[in-house]
């Protein structure tokens, strides 16, 4: 029988971390774009989180879990040797591309049509990293800029510019698809 301390720690961990299971799983699905890989990553994330739970000092559990999940996902991408790293923290070419690009379809006059969740998930999945990650953390996991910065280990300014770029790319893809559908 495990020591009482371990049981109490496990119980505290359950109450602190398990309520975020759906959040963590959602992020894993978007980072890995594969249901069974996401499950494995989430399980590994919770194992690591429990191991480091003693050194956890807060403040927010969600960004902490996300930071661990990111590491797990990066390791998973490293394992898939033939694929590029999931999340590249060094500013790449995409970071330096100006955000503002004149769209040919004069999208400012268009109203986006509602799409079903599946279609929007596909558009999000098609975003390149690190933009997809930033977008999901903000728009789907509802983290503040500061929490995102904490989870991904980047300055708030970087988070802000990645998010702007992610949204610009998503809207461009969205309107392009609607153009095609017409």
């Amino acid at each position, binding site marked *: *029988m*495990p020591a*009482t301390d*371990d*049981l*109490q*720690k*496990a*119980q*505290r*961990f*359950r*109450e602190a971390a*398990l*309520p975020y*299971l*759906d*959040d*963590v*799983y*959602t992020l894993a*699905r978007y980072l890995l774009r594969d249901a069974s890989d*996401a*499950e494995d990553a*989430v*399980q590994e994330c*919770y*194992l690591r989180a*429990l191991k480091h739970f003693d050194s956890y000092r807060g403040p927010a559990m969600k960004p902490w879990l996300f930071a661990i999940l990111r590491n797990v996902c990066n390791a998973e991408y490293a394992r898939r040797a033939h694929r590029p790293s999931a999340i590249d923290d060094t500013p790449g070419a995409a970071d330096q591309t*100006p*955000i*503002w690009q004149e769209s040919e379809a004069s*999208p*400012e*006059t*268009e*109203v*986006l049509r*509602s*799409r*079903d*969740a599946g279609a*929007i*998930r596909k558009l*999000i999945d098609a975003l390149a990293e690190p933009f997809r990650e930033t977008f999901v953390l*903000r*728009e*789907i996991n509802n983290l*503040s*800029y500061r929490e995102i910065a904490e989870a991904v280990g980047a300055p708030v300014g970087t988070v*802000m*510019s990645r*998010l*702007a770029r992610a*949204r*610009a790319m*998503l*809207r461009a893809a*969205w309107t392009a698809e609607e153009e095609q559908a017409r």
Partner: protein
Amino acid sequence: MTCDEARILLHALLDNELDAGHAREVEAHLAACPDCAAEFAAQREMQRVLADTSLRYTAPASLRSRIEASLPQAQRQQPNRRSVLRGFAMGSAVSAMAATGIVALVLRQDDQQRILSEVVSAHLRSLQAGHLTDVVSTDQHTVKPWFNGKLDVAPPVIDLTAQGFTLVGGRLDYIDARAIGAVVYKRRQHVVNLFVSQTSSTEHRPPKTQTMQGFNCRRWGERGLNFWAVSDIGADELAEFVDKFEAAMKANVEG
């Protein structure tokens, strides 16, 4: 402000992340620049559509149980093992965990004392201004539903006004790092907190009074629930409260 800057900052404006000064600057730019204003409107529209769409995933139940199974578990107690402590095992506040059964936490002797002291501390905290009740009502039919969804137990809320203890409301509290329900009564100007938590034991445990820091605490177990009644009223009055509560609860169940 240049358009390039505005195209980044308008998102921070959209997300309410800007301080008042920067927000004003961005708004001034949007007012003067139709292109950026159109982009802002389009992005706001996209955000609205995204918010209306369920883009989250739900973790499969099998994943949840795999993670549960990988955590250190308390061994299931033998049913015939006589353990006074077992009754104090408190259920988890997270109902999702009910799927894998209630993990009975066996407490050591000194933990009993620690929980008593936590109960008394919770009582003291509740006496500070504004901490007494989360839901204020003398109507049991208002207080009882308020607990729904907040706990994995439904604390019995019984109006004892006729018996001299006025129901004043309910509150969530934390004992032993778990959320538990507190039903609040008043006897004249004295507050009685009735803490209710789940237990794995369904056997009846007779009430027992202990005193700590000048407060009387009477605890008992009934129908899978642990009760602690704490107050500064005298031990005899507290016993009267518990008797009346138990009688009313019995009448409720049988009636």
